């Protein structure tokens, strides 16, 4: 229903005449609008490939630049630098707007600062920097606990916990991946990839931390002999840019569905654009 019909009734009552042309006026004065690049870059020493995505805004007023962007984005220049070495990222041949470089060609290390520079095909510039966190979560401290009475079909809810890195302010993200490995073919089928991005250690320094919500992990009743079911749990120690951006982004996605929500000023550390450049370290553990 039902809530939707009430909601629609409400909107109808409030806007009974709003859509009539006689109650609509185009604003012709100065309209706040932004035509700027959107950049996302997440760097980690544990990644084998470093990726930067470059997109564009759809300005509040004026043209939608999608078609031009799609044709020309690969002509943009995206560089990463550690102060000594500067590398140019290569446009991905399949994914439009994605620029990559192998970790072999550009090493990302803990506690170091990296600089991102973007020059778009249409002359816009964006810059950002971030510092990779110095520590990695102790993988041996990562564990999971069953949430009682939570089984639903093949999926079961678990809370993930790990030990906070002591004596520093930390922000964490957690990913869980259910993986069905084919031992004969040496392939893996990934399912149930889930995440929680914004966990902090406020007033819990050095203690065991847990995910606020549970994760659904797949646990089939039957697995063939040549198959192996594995849960991969990643605990990311992220910088503050990662934390702030994802916190706002998750709220913004929900707010966009509700016209009565307060607006969300999405966090960004990209000068000349929107988005985020953030660093993290990754601790990975597997459970069979």
């Amino acid at each position, binding site marked *: *229903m039902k809530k939707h019909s009430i909601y629609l*009734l409400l909107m109808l009552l409030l806007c009974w005449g709003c859509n009539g042309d006689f*109650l609509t006026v185009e604003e012709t004065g100065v*309209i706040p609008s932004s035509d700027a690049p959107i950049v996302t870059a997440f760097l980690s020493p544990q990644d084998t490939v470093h990726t930067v995505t470059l997109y564009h805004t759809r300005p*509040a007023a004026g043209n939608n630049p999608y078609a031009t962007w799609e044709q020309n984005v690969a002509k943009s220049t995206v560089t990463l630098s550690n102060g000594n070495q500067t590398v140019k990222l290569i446009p991905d041949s399949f994914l439009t707007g994605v620029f990559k470089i192998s970790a072999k060609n550009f090493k990302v290390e803990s506690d170091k600062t990296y600089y991102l520079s973007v020059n778009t095909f249409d002359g816009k510039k964006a810059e950002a920097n971030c510092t990779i966190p110095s520590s990695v979560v102790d993988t041996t401290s990562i564990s999971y606990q069953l949430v009682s009475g939570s089984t639903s079909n093949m999926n079961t809810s678990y809370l993930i916990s790990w030990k906070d890195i002591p004596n520093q302010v930390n922000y964490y993200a957690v990913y869980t991946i259910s993986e069905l490995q084919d031992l004969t073919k040496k392939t893996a089928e990934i399912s149930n990839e889930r995440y929680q991005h914004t966990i902090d250690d406020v007033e819990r320094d050095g203690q065991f931390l847990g995910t606020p919500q549970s994760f659904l992990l797949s646990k089939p009743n039957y697995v063939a002999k040549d198959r192996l079911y594995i849960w991969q749990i990643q605990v990311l120690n992220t910088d503050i840019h990662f934390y702030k951006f994802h916190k706002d982004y998750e709220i913004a996605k929900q707010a966009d569905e509700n016209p009565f929500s307060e607006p969300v000023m999405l966090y960004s550390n990209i000068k000349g654009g929107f988005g985020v450049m953030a660093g993290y370290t990754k601790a990975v553990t597997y459970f069979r």
Partner: protein
Amino acid sequence: MKKIYLLLLFTLCSCTLFAQKITISGFVREKGSQEILPYVSVRVPTLNIGTSANAYGFFSLTIPAKEQLELEISQVGYQVKTIRVSAQKNQQITVELSVKNVVLEEVKVNSSQQEKLSEQTQMSLISLPVTQVKAVPAFLGEKDVLKTLQLFPGIQKGREGSTGLYVRGGGPDQNLLILDDATVYNANHLFGFFSVFNGDALKSIEMTKGGFPARYGGRLSSVIDMQMKEGNKEKLTGEFGVGLLSSRLTLEGPLKKEKASFLIAARRTYADALLRPISGGDFPNMYFYDLNMKVNYDLGAKDKIYLSGYLGRDSFSSKDQNYNLAVKNENGFNWGNTTTTLRWNHLFNEKLFSNTSLIFTNFDFKVFNTEESNKGLFSYQYESGIRDFSLKTDFDYLPNYQHNIKAGFLVTAHRFSPKALVLKDSRVDTSSVQSTIINALESAVYVEDLWRINERFSINAGLRLSHFSVNQKNYLNLEPRLSAAYKLPNDAAIKASFARMNQYIHLLSNSGLGLPTDLWVSATDRVPPQTSQQVALGYVKDFSEKNFSLSIEGYYKKMDNIIGYKQGASFLLLDVGPDPQKINAMDWQENVTSGQGKAYGLELMLQRKTGRLTGWIAYTLSKVTHQFAELNDGKEFLPRYDRRHDISIVGIYQLKPMVTFSATWVYGTGNHLSVPIAEGNFNGLDHTGMTSQVSLYDSQNSFQAAAYHRLDLAMKFSKKKKHGERAWEIGVYNAYNRVNPFYYQINQVYDASTRQMGDSKLYRKGLFPIVPSITYSFKF
């Protein structure tokens, strides 16, 4: 030094001992109906002293004994009466004032009309005669108290058509609306387009927006104190009216000759009744009604009892039936206020008067859904509300004409129920009730003295001690209040005031529409009470010969711990549905943040009080800023209803004795809004490979909407008939069809030549075009 004190004490005692004084006290009533008249001016012109009756019509004047003296009694809309009384001993009298034989009344900007503005101590006070509310043009002809108050300086409206009041930089939650001592929590009918107050049932309307006397508290920005009529004690009278939206009927009359009377006033909309037959029963059930009732009884010369109540409700619901699946469904929501006040006026002696009130008030809101099929019945009901029981006693002590001392206390037991869910499912035979109840106790004691120090200088000094207790958390605050006036030559005066206020309950609302889903919640240990400190300075001048008065006031108000909504917060509970987890996740404390606000401004009002053309020009120049650590990167920003310039021009012209033409024109600079500057696509952030789109903003409320302006016109034709007086009124709302901004929308325009979506454009969407109206009323 001690000698000086002793000398002063001796002098004071001597004065008291040797100057024989007498007290003339009593009540003022309306001739004919015997209705008690509040705030009447009582003066002794020869001695150049005077006083005002209190809210219950009682006055007391202690003066030097004389053979005889003349008392001049006056009130807005009544003929001035001069009576001669013997002044050799204490006397209690009842004075009757006759209604002035004019159609129009004047608006006064102080507690007593006949006293000039320059003779008043109180500032920032609006006394609005009900007749004035009825004279001003109104949307669909529905006369509205709150919308009329929006036409005064320092008071701004919210969205188009809304009854919300934004007073001197405060929000709509910071106004205390009192009807016969009872707080009315949700003053909105029909989503805030009309207020719940029926002008036919009201006797007096007073709004204080600064320089608050100590007897008022509990809100930061204003107090709107309304009193219901008591009912005609002499004969049965009434009035009915028919409008495009609703009809109304008022009846009043004696229950026991000169002892007891009653009043009953009712309103109801009838769109549902008219449209349902035409639409074949599919039309949603939509209506509102309200009912005001009051009875009173004179127990004797010293005691009076009043019982009054208000009952109002809005309801919206719809039914549908799927015959194939044999499913019946009904859903909707409704809300309403109920208030009851039992009042006892007691006169201890000619100098001491008391009023004791026992008050009940309740506001509730419900969303419901029932689904009935051959499998069974499933229903859920979501409720929220607030309920108060209060005991209040006020004393008026008038030892002499120089002092008017008021003191009293108030105790209120609040019961907040921000969320309650009732689930029933006969299919699995379950039924559950989940609710959150918060009890809180609010109390206050106060004392104030209106002290006329000499002919030129007077002050009203007071102190209020307020206390709030919730969940073992206690707040105790001292609230000093001071108003002062100094009379200058040529009917001019300068005035100043200071007031500190505390507000222990908060209204959560981010729709800005006055929806019933707005929640009243208590201050907690995490969300402290809001406080404000306001200073004001004013200058008034009466141009008696030309019937003009000019008032200029400047103010500065600092507000602390005001409520702001965190990014993405929503309190629109219609969205919750029957999911207890979702409801529990909506802890309002997680969605609010506390900050500071500053408001300052200059208000001018030029008013013509009498003559064929009456009205006023009000101009407000103001600025409001907010600062929250968790909003806008902690930087100061302009809230939505910061309005630099606000103008109201109201004119009422009596063309003929029975024909009146009225017009209002309002102008306000545009509101500040947060409008997306772009849409942003983000790839792969949720690791599904999908692109998510979110709105991008630069900073809080950085976009300024178009200015608001509107002209309303009305013409009223009255005629005496055999059994009473009938009146037709035709009106036009938004006469030049201005598209005032209700909201903004970004749309992409389809380019037919390229068959592609082209440029994005920003559109201003209005709500009400030109709207004509016609109403009929008959008074008997």
